[in-house]
């Protein structure tokens, strides 16, 4: 109950505004899911799909009419599984349904014939393995003795490649969406207009969004990096300070972009369209799911200038290669430019009512 003798303390406006941001976010369960739950599910799903499995053994079809010596060499070969097949038509059918990668058939003159589709990498692999087994079984010896050492490096798996990309994607998504939606909703509800009818400082209002972002940033990055380390053993080889700095600047630059996207829009529909328009090229080109080097050379200057490309490249360098601050300074400068320019434009365009 209120105590008339002790009036409630009055906190600074910037603190109250930031608290409002945090409360509004925490009280929106859907937003919590999209920011925290969804990236974890995505990481888990992709991590399982692309987990490292033991090398698969190639299935090789062997027709009954193949000479017995050849068939027994194939049976005892390592790295492949021999599948006995009745006749030509059974062989053709097994190839067509990809039940086997290669069919070994007899050819005229006591030799054998390999039937396979050379456009399939596993078929070419099966051909090499089968031929090696057949020839060695017939007495061929390697001209140079060869020893093998297998290496499996943490940091070279798909999940290692993907987690920094997902982190960048998450920084972009929550930066742009959280600000764009909140601003446009406040504008649509005439709440912005009501606020500028008070002595509230407009710059503090905008700053409260950035401050609230920083608060959640710590959680977002911590949860995702921690999850990846615990579940998939994804490394962070660089310093956490450098990683944090890149995340901070990236989050602020995406927030500035969110502010720009929301600076004029009057409806949630309009701002959704704009936000998707801004984010779609980065989803595709910035190398989140696969390397951006896959795109043609002429597109690279454009791709490298995107803030998400800079973010993801820097995060990968820090997490996987242990890059120092100096070696990601190019990306850092790019992100700073993406922070300042959209913010200045947004302040000029911003519609307060």
């Amino acid at each position: 109950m209120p105590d008339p003798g002790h009036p409630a303390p009055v906190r600074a406006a910037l603190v109250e505004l930031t608290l409002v941001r945090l409360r509004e976010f925490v009280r929106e369960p859907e937003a919590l899911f999209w920011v925290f739950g969804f990236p974890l599910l995505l990481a888990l799903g992709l991590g399982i799909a692309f987990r490292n499995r033991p090398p698969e053994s190639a299935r090789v079809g062997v027709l009954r009419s193949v000479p017995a010596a050849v068939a027994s060499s194939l049976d005892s070969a390592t790295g492949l599984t021999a599948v006995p097949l009745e006749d030509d038509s059974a062989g053709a059918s097994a190839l067509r349904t990809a039940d086997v990668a290669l069919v070994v058939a007899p050819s005229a003159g006591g030799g054998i014939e390999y039937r396979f589709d050379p456009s399939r990498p596993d078929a070419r692999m099966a051909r090499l393995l089968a031929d090696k087994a057949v020839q060695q079984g017939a007495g061929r010896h390697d001209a140079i003795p060869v020893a093998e050492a297998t290496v499996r490096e943490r940091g070279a798996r798909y999940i290692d490649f993907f987690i920094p990309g997902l982190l960048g994607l998450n920084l972009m998504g929550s930066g742009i969406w959280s600000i764009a939606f909140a601003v446009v909703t406040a504008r649509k509800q005439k709440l912005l207009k009501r606020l500028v009818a008070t002595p509230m400082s407009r710059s503090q209002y905008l700053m409260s969004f950035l401050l609230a972002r920083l608060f959640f940033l710590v959680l977002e990055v911590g949860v995702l990096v921690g999850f990846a380390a615990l579940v998939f053993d994804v490394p962070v080889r660089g310093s956490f300070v450098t990683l944090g700095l890149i995340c901070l600047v990236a989050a602020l630059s995406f927030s500035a972009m969110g502010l720009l996207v929301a600076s004029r829009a009057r409806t949630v529909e309009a701002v959704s369209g704009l936000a998707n328009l801004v984010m779609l090229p980065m989803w595709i080109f910035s190398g989140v799911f696969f390397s951006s080097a896959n795109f043609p050379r002429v597109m690279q200057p454009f791709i490298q200038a995107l803030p998400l490309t800079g973010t993801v490249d820097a995060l990968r360098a820090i997490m996987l290669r242990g890059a120092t601050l100096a070696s990601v300074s190019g990306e850092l400068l790019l992100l700073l430019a993406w922070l300042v320019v959209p913010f200045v434009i947004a302040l000029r365009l911003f519609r307060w009512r």
Partner: protein
Amino acid sequence: MAASTPLISAGLALRVHGLRKTFGDVVAVAGLDLEVSPGECFGLLGPNGAGKTTTIEICEGLTQPDAGEVELLGRTWHDHGDDLRQRLGIQLQETQLSEKLTVQETLRLFRSFYRNGRDVGDVISLVQLDEKRRARVGTLSGGQKQRLALGCALVGDPELVFLDEPTTGLDPQARRQVWELIEELKATGRTILLTTHYMDEAERLCDQVAIVDHGRNIALGTPRQLIAGLGAEQIVAFAVEKQAAGRLDPQTLAAIATAIDATRPAHATDTGWELPVAALHLAIPALLAELDRRALPLAELRTHSPTLEDVFVSLTGRALRDA
């Protein structure tokens, strides 16, 4: 601009002179003057679209006028905007406060914007939301939301309060609660400018009323003065049985008006027709005789003293609600 007429504004809480504003082709305000004394509750009364909201938002410094002068508490927006923001309390017509915050959080936020203001707990009590202090805004009724909006306008302890249609869309009980709140506010000596299209609201709350139509101030005075300006009029309201209502055409109505010596032509109400007359004791028998002669069965007959509604009708020839 402010320096040109300092003597006129001396002692006024609000002075508006020659205000004009157009939006595209639409003239919202067409040369409007207002003078509000300190401690006064001043009402802008008029139909929807009369320019009330545009006028009040120009006074609030939210809309730029095309022409005209606005002085609040002896100051102008141009020269003392920041100072004025600290001293005004504003309630806008369509603001939706954040639904996810509680009553207390909302008021604390607004309180934090002002250098000097009232204790949040006191304001919650003032607007009678003690039991809802920790309730989310989204769970409040329309009347409670409106009282919270008033609380946000008052938490900065303003000298001058702007209320834009404070009771529109509320049920009768919620309206009365808001009225009581405004009356308490008046009792503390604050100056209030409110807009409304409810006659009863203006009559009950306002010391001075300006009737606004088509962006112009068409009458100014206390509610009593404005009503007295109609002369010693009384209003006769009548309705005929439903099956005969079709025969009550404009020609017939004009003939009835002449027969009972009405001071103005008839105008429609929700249930029937109203005619202002100078002498009730002559008009009623004449009306009954005329209806009888035309075989129009009377369904309802009432008389009442004129209200601000009748003032508006006499000034514009239209009823407020269908204007």
